[in-house]
């Protein structure tokens, strides 16, 4: 009942771990698959060289979510093969998230992750907290198109493009990615935000500004998925504030084929994937559906 297929990849349930959460090491990814119950896991975004990221505080909790600015910290693609190997012991599809400062970096890292045995590539063109990487590409139709095109030349795996609502017209970006050959769209990444401490009068985050995630961005993410799914033919993966089965169902109704969960781990623990899957199942049963596919895009019709 919960199985879905995404670009030819079979998922036992439609919940995926979102990139950037618990994804730096194979051990963590494996745990999310085995005890967490995720249908697929997305690694932390990997780049060409090791990066320590921004200084702490890298995360600040606010009402309704989190603002974080880890700063694309990662050990670099050369060292990541071992982590992928361990992650794959979780027995679910592993999606390699890739960021870069130029097209060549995206392509080189994606090609290497393919060699490491990931099941798909997700291009991070949504991360808003490092100057000319991530969202720098995702803000522009031309750059988004080029990144996807260059990566598609080098890998045979399905390529997802993860978009940001910080772009002026996210639907136009989604279409540009589809035209360039993207196999799916993930929407959305965290949104630029900040928090200032009243006593010291200073921004709390080391990077001053960060990316807002969690339940407070869900309505924005839902709107993006709805608008994108109406205009593209490739699958859309919903991401942004999903914490319950009801949230996930909303995204399916808006046209998402699967959902990613990140910040929700903070509120419901690593087993949130199991919990949300169970809640999706209950919704389907109570409403007389026999599969997730049956409700995908109902709100669009």
């Amino acid at each position, binding site marked *: 009942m919960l199985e879905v297929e995404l670009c030819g990849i079979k998922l036992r349930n439609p919940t995926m771990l979102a990139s*950037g*959460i*618990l*994804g*730096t*090491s*194979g*051990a*963590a990814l*494996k*745990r999310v698959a085995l*005890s967490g119950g995720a249908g697929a896991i997305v690694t*932390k975004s990997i780049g060409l060289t*090791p*990066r*320590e*990221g921004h*200084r*702490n*505080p*890298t*995360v*600040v*909790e606010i*009402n309704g979510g*989190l603002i*974080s600015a*880890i700063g694309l*910290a*990662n*050990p*670099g693609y050369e*060292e990541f093969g071992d982590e992928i190997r*361990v992650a794959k012991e979780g027995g679910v599809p592993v999606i390699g998230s890739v960021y870069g400062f130029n097209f060549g970096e995206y392509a080189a890292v994606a090609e290497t992750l393919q060699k490491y045995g990931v099941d798909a590539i997700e291009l991070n063109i949504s991360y808003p907290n490092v100057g000319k990487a991530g969202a720098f590409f995702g803000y522009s139709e031309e750059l988004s198109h080029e990144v996807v095109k260059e990566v598609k030349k080098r890998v045979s795996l399905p390529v997802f493009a993860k978009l940001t609502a910080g772009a002026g017209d996210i639907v136009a970006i989604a279409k540009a990615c589809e035209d360039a050959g993207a196999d799916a769209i993930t929407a959305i990444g965290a949104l630029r935000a900040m928090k200032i*401490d009243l*006593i*010291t009068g*200073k921004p*709390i985050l*080391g990077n001053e500004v960060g990316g807002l995630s969690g339940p407070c961005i869900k309505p924005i993410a839902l709107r993006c998925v709805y608008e994108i799914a109406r205009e593209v033919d490739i699958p859309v993966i919903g991401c942004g504030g999903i914490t319950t089965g009801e949230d996930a169902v909303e995204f399916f109704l808006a046209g998402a084929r699967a959902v990613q969960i*990140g*910040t929700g*781990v*903070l509120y419901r623990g690593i087993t949130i994937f199991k919990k949300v899957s169970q809640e999706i199942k209950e919704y389907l049963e109570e409403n007389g559906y026999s599969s997730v596919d049956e409700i995908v895009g109902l709100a669009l019709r």
Partner: protein
Amino acid sequence: MHEMQVVKIKKIIKETKRIKTFILDLDVSAIPGQFVMVWLPGVDEKPMSVSYTKGDLGITVLRLGDFTRRLFELSPGDMLGIRGPMGRGFKVYGDKLLLVGGGVGVAPLAPLAEEALAEGKEVTAIIGAITKSELLFVDRIEKAGGRVLISTDDGSAGKKGFTTDVLRELLEEETFDQCFTCGPEIMMAKVLDITREKKIPTQASLHRYFKCGIGICGQCVLDGIGLRVCKEGPTFRDKELRKSPEFGRYWRNAAGQKIYFGGKK
């Protein structure tokens, strides 16, 4: 929700040449072994284990790098940002307890000793340092009624050598219901080897590089067991740690690269 609270430093106690205790204007209770994230605005934020758990919260810090150097420049009345207390503290169930602390690692063990002694339990603490003047909380634990055995690397107090030397000798003659350890990880790994032979259940408090501190970033996840030091830890059971190839061997830097203790693979 662990909101950042900016609080005043009430009191600073110079414990040794390189260790200071900061008593904060923050009346929350913690379980020994728990930690707080300490924010120095404009500088950085680091995890510190709680050394005073009742009444005003306290942390005890070794001057080591840039962050702690800046922390040491502060005076009573200055402000610090605090998130927490967070994480899993030590779990005491026995009546006869053994504590093994090396250097600033005694910080979370001292409140554990005080609380256990107040509940009528028997506490023996092995405290080690490089030299006599760097020994931490010997008086504090003795004053609470605990027995303290000392080791120093240079022999300036107690036994010349390591806490593990004292531990080995002690366990030839006595046994304990539980052991708790905190200090350099190589020391803790040896403590676990020794207490395993004697079948004494042991909990160790680990230090790792932290980012979020709330269990979502994945920075501090231990290889082999997938447990998060900030969430399922920082205290772990011996049987958990024995399943991790990382314990006693390496940690991960801010980029997530493995850094081997002692520089060797």
